[in-house]
């Protein structure tokens, strides 16, 4: 899963270097360029197509889908027909449930995954012992684990968190491993010849060297978390956004289904953004390095 995104850490660092102007100048420049207007055009066409295909003309099967006007009204209504809108407590209860599950699983995955990944990259014997197990388990889709998770883990809540955990866990291990392997061997030799202890090597060579990859892993892992959370909630949940998507389908409350989907997208986007911001903060030194300062 790692390879296509390996460049993103570098890119985001390079972006930070090139963007040094104060935000006011940046906004002014952005407004003068054609980009915001083109973006508005694209998004406008998208919503117009939604409106025309579904609300206005009900073309072919599009007539079955929830319309733009209906969904927006439902979302903004203080007294929604199907009980979920911006002004109802139930909406925030589902968001909170999903967020709590994702973050519990994500933090468990990174606290376990990063040390295991570092050990796998650093210690050859450990690598030899664990890598075959990882390679056997990894191709199995996370969603295929759902029955086993329900069977193995107690309660209703822990299987869902367990599945979400698993999704981020493999990605974190693999990216940390790649990150440690990507460090130039010369650094290790230099550290050894300068008399670094093992813990010094860990803190001053391995962790900073692998950090960009680790954060790419975190970003992919966060996406994977939301992805498997939805599936787990659909199949065995009783609350949460994924459960709500399925429930609204079941009870034919289609406008609420669209609201929930949009909310899921927003939550996924925000949590990935959070990981990216933290990563950029922690890797400021890297931006300087790339700028040649």
């Amino acid at each position, binding site marked *: *899963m790692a*390879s*296509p995104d390996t*460049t993103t850490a570098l890119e985001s660092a390079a972006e930070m270097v090139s963007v040094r102007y104060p935000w006011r100048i940046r906004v002014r420049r952005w407004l003068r360029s*054609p*980009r915001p207007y*083109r*973006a508005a*055009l*694209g*998004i406008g*066409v*998208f919503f117009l197509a939604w409106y025309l295909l579904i609300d206005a003309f009900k073309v072919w*099967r599009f007539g*079955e*889908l929830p319309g733009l006007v209906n969904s927006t009204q439902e979302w903004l209504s203080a007294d929604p027909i199907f009980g979920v809108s911006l002004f109802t407590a139930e909406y925030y209860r589902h968001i909170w449930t999903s967020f709590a599950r994702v973050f519990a699983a994500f933090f468990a995955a990174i606290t376990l995954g990063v040390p295991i990944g570092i050990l796998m990259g650093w210690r*050859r*014997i450990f*690598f*030899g*012992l664990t*890598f*075959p*197990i990882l390679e*056997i388990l990894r*191709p*199995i*889709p*996370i*969603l*295929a*684990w*759902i*029955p*086993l998770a*329900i*069977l*193995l*883990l107690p309660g209703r809540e822990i299987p869902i968190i367990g599945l979400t955990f698993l999704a981020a866990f493999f990605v974190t291990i693999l990216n940390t491993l790649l990150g440690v392997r990507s460090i130039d061997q010369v650094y290790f030799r230099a550290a050894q010849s300068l008399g670094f202890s093992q813990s010094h090597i860990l803190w001053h060579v391995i962790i900073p060297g692998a950090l960009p990859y680790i954060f790419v892993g975190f970003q992919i892992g966060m996406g994977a978390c*939301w*992805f498997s959370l*939805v*599936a787990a909630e*659909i*199949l065995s949940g009783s609350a949460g956004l*994924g459960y709500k*998507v*399925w429930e609204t*389908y079941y009870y034919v409350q*289609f406008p609420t*289904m*669209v609201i*929930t*989907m*949009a909310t*899921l*997208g927003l939550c*996924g*986007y925000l949590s*990935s953004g959070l990981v990216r911001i933290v990563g950029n903060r922690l890797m400021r030194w890297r931006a300087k390095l790339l700028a040649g300062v």
Partner: protein
Amino acid sequence: MKQSSHGGSPARELTTWFQLRRWLKARWNLNLLLGVISLTTLAAVWELGKPLGIPLISNVPPPSEVIVAAQDLLTSEQYWQGWYLSLQRITIGFIIAQIIGIPLGLAMAINRMTFDTTFPVIEILRPIPPVAWIPISIVFWPTREMSVIFIVFLGAFWIVLLNTIGGASHIDPSYKRAALSLGSRPNDLFWKIILPATIPSIVTGMAVGMGISWEMVVASEMIAGDTGLGYLLWLSFQINAIGHVIVCMISIGIAGYCSSAIIRAAGEWATPWRRLF
């Protein structure tokens, strides 16, 4: 000089020991040994989980029961039918994703206007997990088959699109300048520079997309299907045949692994100039 290499050395007994150690120390063989050790340990713990009463593991049928279940399942027609149908869905959905994703990605990378208008829409739709599209696609598509294929398509589409854009927009501009100064026309630029330079990242996108496709086919068959390997997995779980569940999991793992391997091999075949590295 020549004589010594013929092996008339006095420390002959030691050499076998050294050879053995070297054989063990050679990385591949050491890894093989460690792999065998770890997998045997895993199998042993799994097998002995029930008699020894290890918590959690004792809930799962041991390997011996799984083998019995495998013999049972591998001879049933439903199982092979599941393989066939899942593979068919994967193939169709995946190919449609390539047919739409690769040209769109290339167009977005080449043409600024296309990129600026399309990318924001993609950024709105992409964060929605494909699994969350399952209900709406059941509503939209006339048959279950089509909705499963649509979900498979969606799983592979985003990653292929993003990889194509990424690959095509990170080409060293000096190649383009060199080609232009040598008299290339925009057409040559596309076929001789942009497309070949993008193929590696398209292949990466396809291999990753294939993995996601398998996730999606399993999810949509479990949630909305009535055939296929994912459905068989869920059905086995519901009738409490856990041995069959594990056989299905392993089958899906093998299928996913092989499909990605095929794509990677095809990618290597399509980019002969990269084999040197």
